[in-house]
């Protein structure tokens, strides 16, 4: 069942695909940035600050999605004892941490000119802050605990417990009164933003996904080599 996830598959993928992924990234990033900073129209309410959305929203999506993978991987690693999944989670965690920080910082920088404050302890912002703390805890535990088996078990538990926060972040804008606006793009309904703004948003999201994949493959390769060599 988990044969497709064997280390060699991703190791070979890392060796062969990183160069081409970098080329795709450069093109997508150039197109995305030009659309976001030059051609995207000014929003009638947010004015030019809407341009911050083109990095804030993709970063938020990626940080949530990565933690979802970390949680599922931790569960598989803990329950089915397939250790490669904890390596996936360990390799992904720093990427998720950086994207969650970008989401929080850019959100604050957008909030000041729009809401009049950098921060508010409402549902969405607080749950996102908890996600950042969970990422910091997860990454720190791997750094602090020297015994691999102990670190694996404890981080697996953190990954599974941290999953509880993902639906809270997603539905916080519906459950509580919040400064944060509801989602403009969902999987179940047509987007409520104009195509001229949707295009740069999706291209920047695509660019960040490619960049995440490149960094993941690099970190995964490191973790696999490091694990096997240290085990000898």
């Amino acid at each position: 069942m988990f044969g497709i996830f064997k280390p060699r598959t991703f190791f070979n993928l890392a060796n062969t695909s990183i160069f081409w992924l970098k080329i795709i990234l450069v093109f997508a990033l150039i197109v995305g940035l030009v659309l976001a900073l030059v051609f995207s129209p000014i929003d009638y309410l947010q004015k030019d600050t809407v341009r911050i959305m083109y990095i804030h929203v993709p970063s938020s999506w990626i940080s949530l999605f990565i933690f979802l993978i970390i949680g599922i991987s931790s569960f598989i690693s803990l329950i089915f004892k397939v250790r490669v999944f904890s390596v996936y989670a360990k390799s992904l965690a720093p990427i998720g941490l950086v994207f969650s920080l970008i989401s929080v910082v850019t959100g604050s920088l957008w909030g000041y000119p729009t809401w009049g404050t950098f921060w508010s302890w409402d549902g969405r912002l607080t749950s996102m802050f908890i996600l950042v703390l969970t990422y910091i805890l997860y990454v720190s535990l791997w750094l602090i605990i020297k015994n691999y088996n102990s670190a694996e078990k404890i981080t697996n538990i953190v990954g599974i417990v941290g999953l509880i926060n993902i639906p809270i972040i997603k539905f916080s804008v519906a459950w509580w009164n919040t400064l944060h606006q509801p989602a403009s793009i969902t999987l179940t309904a047509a987007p409520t933003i104009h195509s001229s703004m949707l295009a740069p948003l999706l291209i920047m999201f695509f660019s960040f996904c490619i960049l995440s994949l490149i960094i993941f493959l690099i970190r995964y390769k490191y973790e696999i080599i490091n694990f096997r060599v240290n085990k000898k």
Partner: protein
Amino acid sequence: MILQFLNMGGYGLYIWLSYAFAALSLTVLYYVSVKKLNSIKNIEHLYQSEKVEEVTVSAQANRF
């Protein structure tokens, strides 16, 4: 024209700070990752030359 573009309707400071923070943090993450990998590149052959066991959910599950 360039100043007008940089000013971004008076919100340039917030916009450019956001993009600079994202660019800087992602660049640091990328280079730290590459540096870590390069630090053990000289022992990569130890992994490459080995016959790698399949990952299964059987008794072999704790091995790579």
